[in-house]
């Protein structure tokens, strides 16, 4: 923000002249205007989130009666009741399910994307151009198009109502976006270090593990973060493949409370939504530094 501050600093002890004062007042006015406008727009953007958090502490009756976000009678009953859910399971179960989907999927993505990207970025092999075009083509293909064939495939294999349809495609580098991102990142890294490792006697796999992966770390952290957040928020995938409530992740469980109650307990839904946001936010802030580095060096917008 230092660059925005353009109020002239008086270097000499002499009293400022009239023109100087005029300039300073002008600069101050424009600064107030700029910050005011930015704050206002920022507030508009973030208001739904603030309201969500505020409303989660409101009673159901108060929810739609006052537009403000500050609860008149703060209560945590929404959290307590919401956590219990209308099913035999608590929300804790759904969080565990979510983690059980996310963690293997993220690890699988990181490993498979690294291997595939390393192959594309560093080796020459027959059909490379065609295969790379296929990867890019899947990147451009809308997800929805593949839903039905994929569903039929997994049904025939007998994987329905298990986490396998959510894990396996990612563990086989099915997320073309991540592959592409890592390839771009790798292309920007000079090959000299890998050549030095080969001269030092490293095999291809040793070069990958000891030299390439550490240099790829910022990109891999971004990949993991994206995958974490997208999987956490994924609704359609679990909705299609998972049918028993005991395997529901958080995203489905939230919907569940809307379905099963006649008079919606909005404060419970909102309270659980706040909790559902927490893991993504926490992970993002913890890894923010690497995340930004990864996106900007990878040359891919998030």
């Amino acid at each position, binding site marked *: 923000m230092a660059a925005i501050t353009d109020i002239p600093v008086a270097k000499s002890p002499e009293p400022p002249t009239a023109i100087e004062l005029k300039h300073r007042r002008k600069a101050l006015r424009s600064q107030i205007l700029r910050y005011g406008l930015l704050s206002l727009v920022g507030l508009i953007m973030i208001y739904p989130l603030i309201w969500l958090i505020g409303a989660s502490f409101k009673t159901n009756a108060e929810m739609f009666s006052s537009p403000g976000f500050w609860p008149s009678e703060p209560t945590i009953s929404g959290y307590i009741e919401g956590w219990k859910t209308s099913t035999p399971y608590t929300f804790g179960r759904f969080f565990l399910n979510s983690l059980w989907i996310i963690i293997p999927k993220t690890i699988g993505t990181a490993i498979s994307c690294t291997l595939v990207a390393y192959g594309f970025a560093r080796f020459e092999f027959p059909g490379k151009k065609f295969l790379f075009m296929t990867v890019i083509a899947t990147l451009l293909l809308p997800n929805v198009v593949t839903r039905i064939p994929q569903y039929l495939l997994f049904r025939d294999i007998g994987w329905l109502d298990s986490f396998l349809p959510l894990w396996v495609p990612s563990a086989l580098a099915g997320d073309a976006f991540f592959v592409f991102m890592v390839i771009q990142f790798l292309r920007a890294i*000079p090959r*000299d*270090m890998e*050549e*030095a*490792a*080969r*001269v*030092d*006697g*490293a*095999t291809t796999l*040793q070069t990958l593990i*000891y*030299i390439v992966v*550490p*240099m790829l*770390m910022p990109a891999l952290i971004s990949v993991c973060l994206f995958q974490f957040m997208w999987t956490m928020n994924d609704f359609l995938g679990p909705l299609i493949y998972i049918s028993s409530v005991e395997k529901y992740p958080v995203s489905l469980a939230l919907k569940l409370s809307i379905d099963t109650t006649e008079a919606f307990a909005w404060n419970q839904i909102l309270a659980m939504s706040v909790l559902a946001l927490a893991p993504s936010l926490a992970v993002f802030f913890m890894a923010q530094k690497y995340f930004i580095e990864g996106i900007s060096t990878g040359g891919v917008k998030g």
Partner: protein
Amino acid sequence: MAELQLKSVEKTYGNGFKAVHGINLEVKEGEFMVLVGPSGCAKSTTLRMIAGLETISGGEIRIGENVVNDLVPGKRGIAMVFQNYALYPHMKVRRNLGFGLQLRGKPKAEIATATDEVSEILEIEKLLDRLPKQLSGGQAQRVAVGRALIKHPDVFLFDEPLSNLDAKLRAAMRVRITDLHKRLKAEGRPATVVYVTHDQVEAMTMGDRICVMKDGHIMQVADPVTLYERPANAFVAGFIGMPEMNLVPAVLTRGIGAQLTLDGQTVDLGDELARRLYCQDGPVTLGIRPQHLGVAPAGSPDSLTGSVTNVEFMGHEVNLHAKVGSATFVAVVPSEQFDRATQRGDKVGLTVSGRHAHVFDVTSGENVSLKGQIN
């Protein structure tokens, strides 16, 4: 340590471009061989083929007794120092040095001893716990040399290792590397070195022998003195030496001595040159180093009269540029012998020292004035 042999080594790229045209080169055990040439002459490609980082399209590379054509770099008994150091950025200096030994499964104690020994030789003991990004260019270069040294390779390969350093540091590192080579020799473990550079000063000061390359061909392999005094062709003559040798078209006629005619002016370059020649009379290229041209008053006997086009004052000497007909000559004259009043456009006489003159064939560029000379 071992000798290195290249036999008819070729490199053709996938797009059909032939970068290296069947070169033959022998580097003796413990020899410091410098590959030098302008950019694009395939000197780095040649080095990378020796290292195994590029495949070869034909011929044979031999290190010691072994043909290494199909061996991976790690099995060739080589170590390489890269132009931009190529230190592993995420490893501390200590691990950078020991990484090669670690991959070979050497015990930790042995790696530690070797690391200490090498860091003492290169005076990098204090840097062992730093990351590469915390090193200056010169320090990083020393670590890169250390990483090669620690492996006791049969052949050391250097790929323009000093080109990223400033002039002062480059001079210091030059001395350091040659000292290291001598030290290893004195300790009874001579190092065979192949050193690639585009800088002729590095080539002349460091190499036991120098291999001058152009467009994937070897132009001459010789020790620095031979290369300077008896260049095999016009390319080597022009490439080695500062300022570069004057190469001008002339017509040769032989009477008692060797007369060269240039722009209607004829100079006699004497018997000594005539005896060295093995070519027909007719058009040739005259080669004379700027240091072997004398400046005399215009019209002096046996001098070429030209007009001054530029005068460069270099301190202890002056570079005088003069045009004789369409040919431009550069003469290096000691400052104290130089007439400071000389100006652009003045007429000046240039005397050619026949003993130092070279005559090159016009078409092949071959030096045809080396008869009876040991080369």
